[in-house]
């Protein structure tokens, strides 16, 4: 009975291995424990032993091919024995055949191996041996031209890349050898070695693995600075509540179905919440304020910041005089500002002067969260998604009513918990009776 030899699992983090060299050929007789082939993981080279005794009936992967662990790599049985490839193995064979056809028809374009076509172990060896893979015009000998360890070792032997003086400095100082030199033909000079003087670097490749470094700029940099400044200079406290959203939902579907001439089709629930906030805030000037360290500046009007997620990052355009706008005007202005931000055309005029900010993570299914105050404002309202909440009726019957999550973060330096809670409670009422609020 033929049996499969599989690629062993060589560690918890190893998903696949590259076969380097077969030590046996089809037709060879092997015993259990004999070495069948050498394989390369990102950490080591291992010998794969036969798990059965008999004749090697078929070798399923050639040298240089990457094989997922636990995948059959060879079939061992009695000489002349008919065998059926296991499902995965036959799938693999079909794929291989397909690939061969494709390979034949595909013209060779790129001679230089791309970055991904280097095995992790080869990359690690290259780093140890101070070989800059990209600078070598080597064609990998692995599958599809993949550069594997032996290619790197061959390159090490063929090239002298350190100048005599640099080699001496390396030998005397124990400094690491940089992978790139700035001398003739990329030779590594003494200055390159000294510039590279970062002794602890060896484990870079193993853990945490490859990474991308992106220097902060633009909106990201500003946001980073502002957020840290906010947390570092305020005493933030977040309180949560849920507001009945039935009125919002009813009105929203009315707007949707309304005739074009009302121009209300695009008014969203978010717009209604902005409207409710702008009206409620008028009764709570302490929350419509700037905290300036030694004094509190409370504003007569509400200039509502509204967080907008764009490709470039977070923008908070300000809806000026939100408290004086009709719901439709507020909705239109919100959309106008959001599209300015998305186009990257929003300037300081649109992005400054807010007295209170609203941020909405509802569309992502978030119920409640802890927004960060947009200083020097003293409060920010986070809007969550609408969920069904059980409400017990007058006769002890339970019904499920849609509620929207509200998270209010305040700067406790400027506002206390109770007034904040009063504001939030009033806001919940306003939202629950949004149709009435609108008529006010």
């Amino acid at each position, binding site marked *: 009975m033929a049996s499969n030899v599989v690629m062993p699992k060589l560690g918890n983090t190893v998903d696949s291995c590259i076969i380097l060299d077969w030590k046996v050929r089809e037709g060879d007789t092997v015993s259990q424990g004999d070495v069948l082939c050498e394989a390369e993981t990102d950490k080591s080279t291992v010998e794969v032993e036969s798990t059965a005794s008999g004749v090697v009936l078929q070798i399923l992967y050639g040298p240089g091919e990457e094989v997922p662990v636990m995948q059959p790599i060879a079939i061992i049985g009695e000489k002349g024995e008919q065998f059926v490839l296991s499902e995965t193995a036959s799938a693999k064979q079909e794929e291989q055949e397909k690939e061969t056809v494709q390979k034949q028809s595909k013209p060779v374009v790129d001679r230089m191996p791309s970055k991904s076509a280097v095995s992790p172990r080869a990359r690690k060896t290259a780093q140890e041996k101070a070989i800059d893979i990209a600078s070598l015009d080597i064609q990998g000998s692995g599958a599809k031209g993949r550069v594997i360890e032996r290619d790197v070792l061959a390159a090490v032997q063929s090239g002298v890349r350190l100048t*005599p003086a640099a080699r001496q400095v390396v030998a005397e100082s124990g400094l690491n050898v940089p992978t790139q030199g700035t*001398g003739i033909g990329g030779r590594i000079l003494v200055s390159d070695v000294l510039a590279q003087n970062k002794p602890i670097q060896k484990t870079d490749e193993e853990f945490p693995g490859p990474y991308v470094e992106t220097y902060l700029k633009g909106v990201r940099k500003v946001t980073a600075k502002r957020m840290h400044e906010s947390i570092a200079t305020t005493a933030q406290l977040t309180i949560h509540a849920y507001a009945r959203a039935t009125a919002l939902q009813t009105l929203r579907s009315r707007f949707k179905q309304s005739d074009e001439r009302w121009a209300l089709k695009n008014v969203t629930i978010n717009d209604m919440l902005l409207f409710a906030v702008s009206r409620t805030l008028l009764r709570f000037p302490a929350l419509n304020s700037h905290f300036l360290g030694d004094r509190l500046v409370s504003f007569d009007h509400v200039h509502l910041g509204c967080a907008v997620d764009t490709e470039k990052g977070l923008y908070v355009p300000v809806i000026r005089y939100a408290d004086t706008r009709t719901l439709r005007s507020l909705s239109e202005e919100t959309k106008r500002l959001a599209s300015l931000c998305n186009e990257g055309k929003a300037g300081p005029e649109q992005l400054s002067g807010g007295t209170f900010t609203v941020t909405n993570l509802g569309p992502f299914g978030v119920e409640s969260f802890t927004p960060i105050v947009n200083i020097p404002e003293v409060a920010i309202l986070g809007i969550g998604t609408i969920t069904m909440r059980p409400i017990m009726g007058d006769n002890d019957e339970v019904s499920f009513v849609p509620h929207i999550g509200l998270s209010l973060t305040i700067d406790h330096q400027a506002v206390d918990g109770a007034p904040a809670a009063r504001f939030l409670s009033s806001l919940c009422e306003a939202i629950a009776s949004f149709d009435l609020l609108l008529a006010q």
Partner: protein
Amino acid sequence: MAQYDLIVIGSGPGGYVAAERAGRMGKKVLLIERDQLGGVCTNHGCIPTKSLLNAAKLYRHARESQAMGIVAQSVSFDLATAMAWKRQTVETLRNGIQFLVKSAKVDVVFGEAQCIDPHRVAVGETIYDGKYLIVATGSSPAIPPIQGVDLPHVLTSDDILEIDSIPDSLVIIGGGVIGIEFASFFSSLGTKVSVIEMLDEIVPLMDVEFAKLLRRDMKGVEFYLGCTVKAIDKDGVHFVDAKGKSTTIAAELVLLSVGRRPNLSALEQLDLAVDRTGVIVDERMRTNIPNVYAIGDVNGRSLLAHSASRMAEVAVSNIFGTDRQRMRYHAIPWAVYGIPEAAGCGLTEQEGNKSARNIVTATTQMRANGRFLAEQGKRSAGLCKVVVDAQTQAIVGIHLLGPYSSEIIWGAAALIEAELRVQDVQEIVFPHPSVSEVIKDTIMALAANKT
């Protein structure tokens, strides 16, 4: 509007090399030149002066080689013929450059270039559009703000190459490379030459010991060091020395060779970052404008023709090829083609002492060298100094004074670029007899000192 991959302004040893390299890469290249192909190097600098200096050297050898058995009577120097030879040389080389750029399929336009923006360059009425721009506009002789510099007998190095008679007296203001070469030339022809230098020593890039020896060996030339020129008039050049003493030297001709200034007029409409020496570039020749590169004298980093050519290669490589090419300045050889010649590469002893690294030096006299002694005799000036890094023993500087120096010095560049150490150079065989052996002998002295 014509579309180019690359527009190069200026066809000196920076510009034409850049254009030619890019052209050979199959790029569509435009080369703009306001004067003649080859720039200052070919037309008003390196080449014409070498032609004249060699004539002067032959003339001098003819008159001064009695000790070797040469008795030459009624030897004379005909300036017109020497100038014709020079002209012919320049024309031949210019034609060579023309052939070179043409075979690289580079379009050449003659006229004053004016950059409109980083992608557009106007020449007269025509506007050319280029993806990349290499500025190689070179430099011009600096005119110091001295009263009388506009007098007709006050010349720059450009003008003095076109004179039609040998002056009886010449005052050279500025003892740099250009000043010293002209001093050698004219003093060899019998002109009474005086050199006025503001610094304490001539040729600032040269090892002080060598500069001193060179000065002493230029017997026909009077040197006034640490002196400031106050005015020039028809009586002569008026200057004061460090102690405030005023002197006047009469001069039929005055040569201004106080340095060179970058030619920036074509670039006025670009917002190029510029410092005292020229357009600011990084080691890849990039300016502050992403598609604009600046090479050669206009960036002021190294005012040498061969530096410009290397910068051209670096710039073109960075634009169209790999970004791995960088300009290295630590091993650029230079030469002064005076009589005698001097050449150097890398750190001088003075620079080494000022830097953080520890250095060791050795100096040998050339008269210990077989060929030098055979040809020059034991009284001639000749020196070799080698500077090595004390820690690694790597060669970091080599300086030569004596015949053939300019032809030998490239070897120093190779040793320094390769960071070879004293013990490595010991394994290299130098030809015997040759003046170049002096380098190995000096390095051997360092090895002996060590053990």
